[in-house]
């Protein structure tokens, strides 16, 4: 097999439980985003734009949808004779078979896969971040610094720093300290979960880490600190630009709204860095007489007869006459019936909001469907849920099934 200088491994096995009902039946990377994408499209598109043509996608939690979505990889030009995209679920081997115990273990279990391509460098990525990044530049930096590991970092607001893995680097960009979610952060450079490793070095650490029964086999908790402790050459690569971890309902909602800002905080209209996705086979969207659509993103197959304001409609959404959608994200195939009102909500795929129903109603007691996952006044309606006529659902609600409290 032809030697690839660089290979990417995308960690896409996590459940993303903080997304509540949105990840009930799909893994987080398969959650829809931005009108026609899935979260993993951003990472896959970054790979192809960075000239990385060999990509392993490590799946575990609810992989069916993700597997089908990735398919042969042709939407991202990753259907290739040499390289291409490979979905890598955990497997049974002669000695044993086990689930991926942690992020590092997931790569460990696929050492053979990586070795087949015999790459000099491996880029480890998360399948659940929204950003546009040229990994090739980072690999160049890694080479220049003759590093064993390079970690992409981004400046975050000081008050949020304790939510992230925080790096402290010296003036040459060499990492001197790493703290996972520190109470008192010494720096505001957060790890983006984007790593470049020299494969030979990483392989050794993965093998040693596996032998340690105390280890949780995680990059952030184990591999990085151990490498740092052993004095390996580890560098921080500063990334500037938009980057968002969409791990919670609120951050997912915010990141979607960032697209709608004028000018957009995150610009998808970039012909030199298109985000590729599996495109639906749907006609252009139709906006009827009497409809109103302002500050919105609308995609193919939608039918809008009502009023849509500051919202994102995915493919094939219907907004009937007199219905109002505001500050919301409506996933593919959902129907907002006549006169229904949807405010600051995320509506799952193929959901139906009945005639005259109200989602995100400030005057309704929200305890019925309250959920720890829904904060900031955002409501969440699960995929396939039908909200009955004239039903009122309060703010911060999560409806998994009608009448069932939103605990997923």
């Amino acid at each position, binding site marked *: 097999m032809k030697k690839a200088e660089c290979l990417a491994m995308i960690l896409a096995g996590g459940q993303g439980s903080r997304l509540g009902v949105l990840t009930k039946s799909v893994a987080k990377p398969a959650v829809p985003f931005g009108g026609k994408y899935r979260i993993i499209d951003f990472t896959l598109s970054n790979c192809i734009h960075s000239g990385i043509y060999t990509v392993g996608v490590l799946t575990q939690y609810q992989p069916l949808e993700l597997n089908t979505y990735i398919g042969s990889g042709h939407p991202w030009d990753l259907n290739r004779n040499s390289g291409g995209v490979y979905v890598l679920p955990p497997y049974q081997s002669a000695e044993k078979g086990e689930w991926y115990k942690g992020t590092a273990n997931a790569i460990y279990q696929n050492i053979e896969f990586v070795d087949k391509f015999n790459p000099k460098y491996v880029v480890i990525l998360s399948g659940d971040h929204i950003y546009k990044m040229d990994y090739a530049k980072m690999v160049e930096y890694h080479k220049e610094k003759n590093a064993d590991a390079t970690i992409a970092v981004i400046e975050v607001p000081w008050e949020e720093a304790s939510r992230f893995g925080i790096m402290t680097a010296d003036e040459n960009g060499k990492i001197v300290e790493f703290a996972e979610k520190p109470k008192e952060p010494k720096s505001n450079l957060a790890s983006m979960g984007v790593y470049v490793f020299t494969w030979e070095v990483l392989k050794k650490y993965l093998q040693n880490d596996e032998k340690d029964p105390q280890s949780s086999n995680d990059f952030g908790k184990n591999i990085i600190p151990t490498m740092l402790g052993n004095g390996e050459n580890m560098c921080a690569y500063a990334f500037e630009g938009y980057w968002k971890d969409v791990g919670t309902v609120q951050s997912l909602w915010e990141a979607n709204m960032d697209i709608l800002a004028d000018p957009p905080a995150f610009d998808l209209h970039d012909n030199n860095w298109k985000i590729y996705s599996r495109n639906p086979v749907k006609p*252009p969207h139709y906006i009827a007489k*009497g409809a109103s659509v302002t*500050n919105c993103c609308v995609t193919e197959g939608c039918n809008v007869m009502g009023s849509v304001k500051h919202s994102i409609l995915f493919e094939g959404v219907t907004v009937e006459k007199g219905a109002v959608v505001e500050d919301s994200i409506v996933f593919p195939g959902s129907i907002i019936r006549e006169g229904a009102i949807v405010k600051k909500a995320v509506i799952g795929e193929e959901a139906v909001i009945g005639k005259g129903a109200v989602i995100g109603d400030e005057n309704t007691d929200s305890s019925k469907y309250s959920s720890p996952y829904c904060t900031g006044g955002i409501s969440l309606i699960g995929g396939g849920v039908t909200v009955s006529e004239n039903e009122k659902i309060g703010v911060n609600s999560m409806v998994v099934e009608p009448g069932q409290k939103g605990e997923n």
Partner: protein
Amino acid sequence: MKDMMGIIMADNSELRLNELTEFRSVPALPFGGRYRLVDFILSNMVNSGIINVGVATSINYSSLMDHLGSGAPWDLNRKIYGLFMLPPYVRGGVSDISAGSVDQLYGVLTFLRRSRQQYVLLASGRTVCNMTFDAALSQHIEKGADITVIYHDKKEKDEQLSHSTVYEVNEDGRVTGIETEPHFPKTTLQGMGMFIIGRLKLIELIEDAYARGSHDFVRDLLRNAVNTLNVFGYEYKGFVGTVDSVRSYFEVNMKMLDADVRKEIFGAENRIYTKVKDQVPTQYKETSQISDSLIADGCVIEGKVENSIIFRGVHIAKGAVVKNSIVMQNSVIEENCDIENTIIDKECTLRASKRLVGQPNYPVILPKRTLL
């Protein structure tokens, strides 16, 4: 339908489309916001289970080739059969380029001989409909037909009928008369430019017609066949839009704003496939006002759009009004423009405050890449 193959005849012989076909063949005409005309016949073929399709081109076929590519959007990028581009064949320095459909077919004889399907669906690629050919083929076999022509009943004698092929069909379904571009058509049965013929029969007919110096498939070959062969008609009863003039191009596009037509064409289980462009969703700004319009992905809309069809990647700036018009891919309409009854071809730019107004039955055309 493993036993039928398809041949799409991509000709440019349509003078009534003016500037629209100056740089492209008729099947390559952009349609309905994100399609090209060829998408309909190609999707219909694929949805009927046809896996072997040849596209016979004449001149200016680069936009068609660019659009069809390897055939992947139609699942025609196959090892076994798939999509074949059949450019004009040049024999001893004499090309078929300006000759008729018989000459064009003569050029694809090798493709016909190499294929193994028993039947051929010959189609023009200018008809907008969502149909499959199973029933037509069954009828063809059942009747023992040599040629089956597919037609629909226009119900009224209009201008378009006078530049179409019009059939007379008796109660058995046998075609008894053919008129091409009749001034006073005898019936309202308009041909859809689709024919089912046995593959070997087609080879035989083309060789024969070519040897006699005939050029046109319908005028020469088919009209002759009515008297000598079993020619039957198959009536299609769904929506049919035939694009053969600027006016019909405009009208058939506008028909897509009709909810029932749109549902039949795009909402059916059988999909209409087209080349994927990976455009972002369309962005509507604070000032946008939209009514009764079909809008594709990748647009930025700040102005007013009414009763129009907007293709992918169009920008309509603040204060601009687009009414009863078609705006093709990547065109830019700057601030305070006023557009009505107009067809704006691809990649045009209208600088601020331009006014362009046509008549509903005679739209103005702004040719490709015009800067106004």
